[in-house]
């Protein structure tokens, strides 16, 4: 399992691995928002938590189609499915690797990008906390979506269509927690819901993803 995690991290960091792609997309998206909305700092401050959460979500989505498709193409998935490690565990580890290479950099970069959107001072801590608690759910839902669409030629668009509706609850509670934090209100309730969502995804989705993948490998 650790070998698989190290391999996925190493592949992500090598040329063509896609590390930093999501981060660059997140940066560009948040830079573009003030251009399209206009420079009114109060308006930007109001929409900043929502924009940052939406940006993080789309950046996460961007790298999902590589998650299992590359392993499928070179035959590694067949071998992993017959290897002594359980497929559920292998998929959970792949989700973890995706989170470390995509979700975690977004969490770290979000406060810096909050400055661009004039996020109110009280909101920075809660933005980071909400992203930290919510992005694992995004990665695990992504693994499930990737397992559903693996083997379909150019399944990236289908993957986005399948995964985006599943991201809705995470987005609602994550953005709400960040918004309440920025407005100086108590963000505990949405944060608890968000944490519950993430934990539920981590606990259940590896099994669903593994079942979907076994169907697709036939």
């Amino acid at each position, binding site marked *: 399992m*650790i*070998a*698989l995690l190290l*391999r996925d991290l*190493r*592949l992500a960091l*090598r*040329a*063509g*691995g896609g590390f930093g792609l999501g981060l660059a997309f997140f940066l560009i998206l948040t830079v573009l928002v003030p251009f399209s909305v206009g420079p009114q700092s109060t308006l930007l401050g109001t929409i900043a938590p929502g924009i940052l959460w939406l940006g993080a979500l789309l950046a996460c989505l961007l790298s999902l189609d590589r998650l299992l498709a590359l392993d499928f*193409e*070179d*035959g*590694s998935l*067949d*071998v*992993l*499915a*017959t*290897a*002594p*490690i359980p497929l559920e565990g292998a998929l959970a580890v792949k989700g973890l690797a995706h989170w470390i290479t995509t979700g975690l950099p977004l969490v770290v970069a979000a406060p810096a990008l909050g400055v661009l959107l004039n996020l109110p001072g009280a909101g920075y801590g809660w933005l980071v906390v909400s992203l930290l608690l919510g992005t694992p759910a995004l990665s695990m839902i992504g693994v499930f979506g990737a397992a559903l669409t693996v083997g379909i030629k150019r399944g990236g668009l289908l993957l986005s269509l399948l995964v985006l509706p599943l991201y809705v609850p995470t987005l609602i509670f994550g953005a709400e927690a960040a918004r309440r934090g920025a407005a100086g209100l108590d963000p505990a309730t949405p944060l608890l819901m968000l944490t519950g969502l993430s934990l539920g995804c981590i606990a259940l989705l590896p099994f669903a993803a593994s079942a979907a993948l076994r169907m697709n*490998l*036939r």
Partner: protein
Amino acid sequence: MTLLVQNLTVARGGVPVLTGVTLRLDAGKALILRGPNGAGKTTLLRTIAGLQPPLRGTIDGAEDRVAYGAHADGLKAMLSVSENLRFWARVYGEHDITAALAAYALEPLRDRLAGTLSAGQKRRAGLARLMVTQRPVWLLDEPTVSLDTDAVAMFAGAVDAHLAGGGSAILATHIDLGLQAETLDLTPYRAAPDARHGASDEAFL
């Protein structure tokens, strides 16, 4: 331990391709599958490997004992040969890859990225992966594709050593490897083309 396949019916895309396949593979023995293209050699191997369920019949003695070598080599282009092999070795709980590197003359290539190898060199690295799994039953699908005569001899030697060590192997191949092996022709087991037992779920896709 013996691999026992009894009265197996396998399907590809919901259509049965082979019915009533019965075979027995004892330790130290090899079995060569023959049959024209599309006879169902790959499907049979994937079923024995556990990648797809059989429509009917039983497979005994394959659980967690097989190493499957498919058309694709399972190599990552951006990892070196030794990194690729060491990864698979660790997945299978084994750490020494020197024997596998030596058996396929991969020592000079160990630090090359797998993506820069030629097709035959990739194949050799893919076959070396079977050695680091330490699994007793090898299932090989067209293992000699793109290998030159020297490499075919290396492969035959590796299979011989595996059999001598108490392992066994099922190979789907069209060339003569010079192995002491039984041959199973799959043509008599071909399923009748209109026998659509396995209702396909792919109509919805």
